[in-house]
């Protein structure tokens, strides 16, 4: 998706050029590596899926958005230690593929934005062909080194991950895959249950490197993680269209394990931006599976950066653009699922803003239609009062997803 939020400018153009150069550079390296090692490399393995998706933000909408996605994955071991992998996505949109963010937020907030700047909030879903992941991994005897666009995920939280600086999860489907991140990464095990991970962020300009260091250990039934990061963050005021980009330091701690038979996790960070206000975020969660297969998960997320009820346009846009992980300060997520048959699982989740008392209910159905064909259905029913995060005025929508894996 390409979001046309503030129009284009020279910096964005430069970033686009850098991104393209990077993708082509890694692609070229990959092809050359295969060419020179084709004689002894394992054959490239191809797999992936084709997905059709329908998104109707309003029930009964006669003009929904259709998405057709072909994901092609490839893997090859060039030697016992050198591994190449990645995937390319071909995405085609049809139907209602344009919108305006001001129509996706409560009217009481949208009307605060002058009508002459409304076009700046337009967005469109453009067809795209994108290298989602493309990386080279070398396994040294003592550690692993990965270079390229790759999946980088952090944190024990299910819906919210304060320690994850690279991804924002969807409340509809928190497990959905995300686009890779360009980075240089080292995973260094220290024995069987401990290890260090270092990440050098290649998406930041050379003079503004982003770096992250994580230490992991296990004790008893718990895993513990300590994370330190120095990255660049954007702080945008969407009422004035002014943006501050500055270095921010983060210290994070998370743990996951169990006590009294219940799965428990905690994940928290403290953040020190250079000039902006310091903030902290944390997640507390737990889950349990009953004997009959009923699974229940509960997660609470607090962000001191979040708003406690009187939202403005920046609170909403910050969430849409990924600058913040939630609109509200206090959030609750409850999820339950049950395997009705071997092929059918039903579930229901509810996300609640404790700050304004609003909720959205999301029923989920997951059905294995055939050996390699999977159907997923999601609903979204907003129950909150006007002006809240899950306000009724935002409507009720559905998402249907049919996937053929090959």
């Amino acid at each position, binding site marked *: 998706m390409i979001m046309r939020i503030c129009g284009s400018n020279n910096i964005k153009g430069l970033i686009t050029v850098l991104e393209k150069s990077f993708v082509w550079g890694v692609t070229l390296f990959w092809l050359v590596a295969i060419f020179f090692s084709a004689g002894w490399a394992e054959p490239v393995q191809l*797999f*992936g*899926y084709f997905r059709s998706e329908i998104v109707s933000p309003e029930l009964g909408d006669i003009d929904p958005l259709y998405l057709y996605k072909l994901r092609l994955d490839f893997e090859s071991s060039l030697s016992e230690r050198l591994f190449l992998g990645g995937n390319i996505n071909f995405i085609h949109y049809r139907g209602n593929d344009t919108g305006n963010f001001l129509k996706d937020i409560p009217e009481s907030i949208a009307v605060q934005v002058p009508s002459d700047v409304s076009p700046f909030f337009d967005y469109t879903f453009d067809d795209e062909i994108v290298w989602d992941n493309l990386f080279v991994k070398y396994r040294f005897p003592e550690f*692993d080194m990965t270079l390229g666009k*790759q*999946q*980088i*995920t952090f944190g*024990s939280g299910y819906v919210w991950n304060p320690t994850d600086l690279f991804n924002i999860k969807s409340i509809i489907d928190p*497990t959905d*895959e*995300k686009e890779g991140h360009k980075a240089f990464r080292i*995973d260094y*095990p220290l024995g*069987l*249950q401990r*290890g260090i991970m270092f990440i050098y962020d290649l998406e930041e300009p050379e003079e503004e490197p982003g770096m992250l260091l994580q230490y*992991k250990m296990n004790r008893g*039934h718990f*895993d513990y993680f300590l994370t330190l990061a120095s990255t660049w963050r954007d702080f945008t005021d969407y009422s004035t269209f002014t943006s501050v980009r500055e270095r921010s330091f983060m210290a994070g701690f998370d743990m*996951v*394990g*169990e006590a009294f*038979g*219940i*799965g*428990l996790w905690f994940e928290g960070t403290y953040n020190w931006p250079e000039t902006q206000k310091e903030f902290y975020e944390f997640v507390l969660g737990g*889950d*349990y*599976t*009953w*004997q*009959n*297969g009923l*699974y229940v998960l509960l997660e609470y997320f607090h962000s001191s950066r979040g708003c406690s009820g009187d939202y403005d346009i920046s609170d909403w846009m910050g969430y849409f653009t990924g600058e913040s992980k939630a609109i509200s300060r206090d959030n609750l997520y409850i999820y339950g699922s049950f*395997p009705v*048959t*071997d*092929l059918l*699982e039903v579930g229901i989740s509810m996300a609640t803003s404790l700050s304004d008392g609003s909720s959205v209910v999301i029923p989920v159905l997951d059905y*294995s239609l055939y*050996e*390699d064909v*999977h159907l997923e259905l999601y609903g979204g029913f907003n129950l909150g009062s006007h002006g809240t995060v899950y306000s009724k005025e935002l409507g009720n929508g559905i998402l249907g997803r049919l*996937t053929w*894996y*090959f």
Partner: protein
Amino acid sequence: MKRNLPFVLALILVILVTAVEGQELTGTDIIRKVNDILNQESAFSISRMTIQTSSGQLRTFEFHSWARDRGEKTLIRYTAPSRARDQAILMLNNADDIWMYFPRTKRVRKLATHAKRQKMQGSDFSYEDMGSGDIFISDFDAIRIDDYRYNNIPCYRVRLERLPSSTSSYIKVIIWVREQDMFPIVIEYYDEQYQGSLSKQLFLEDIRVIQGIPTSMRMVMKNEMDLSETVMEMLEIDYSVDPGIEMFTERSLRE
């Protein structure tokens, strides 16, 4: 006749010793022998799991599995179908510690012990059934009950009763053990959620001797509640491999 006398006496002695030995075997003795056969020091296998639902639909999965320390450590990696490809599960401490790896997001998630009650890819096998190691010894009291013949094969029967400290989802297990080689051929699982009634039966079939070890090449788990069944076929098995302790780490899980 005189010439045959030593042979006849020897035969009688063997029969007597076997009979006495059989009578003296306690439930614990039998389960220890079963455990020794089922949980070898290390193993690598390639398996195919076919789920047959109550409506007759089939779903097939294939996976590689490594185990060591008599099943205390297990790593399972799916190779088919494409949807599950490269998904992996690491189970340590007899499945009391479980980590799952999701290849599309490269995320490793630690699961609590309650997760071992969940069905493995929707099959009639739970994670507990796959990676429980010597749980029959550590988590249950073994009581020998009446011997029976199964398909005309003489069998010992042992009832296992769950200890209060156990996290197993089975309140009771009854194992039918072939007298001739102490190999289990039927395992009945009684589930707490069904008020202790029979919930699943595992039939171990096509028993062959691989590298000197009796091995079931076909296992059928019948779910008495859902009326579904899952067939696990052993395509390849090797007890001589040494997977190495580093195989059972997060690094290996992500490989």
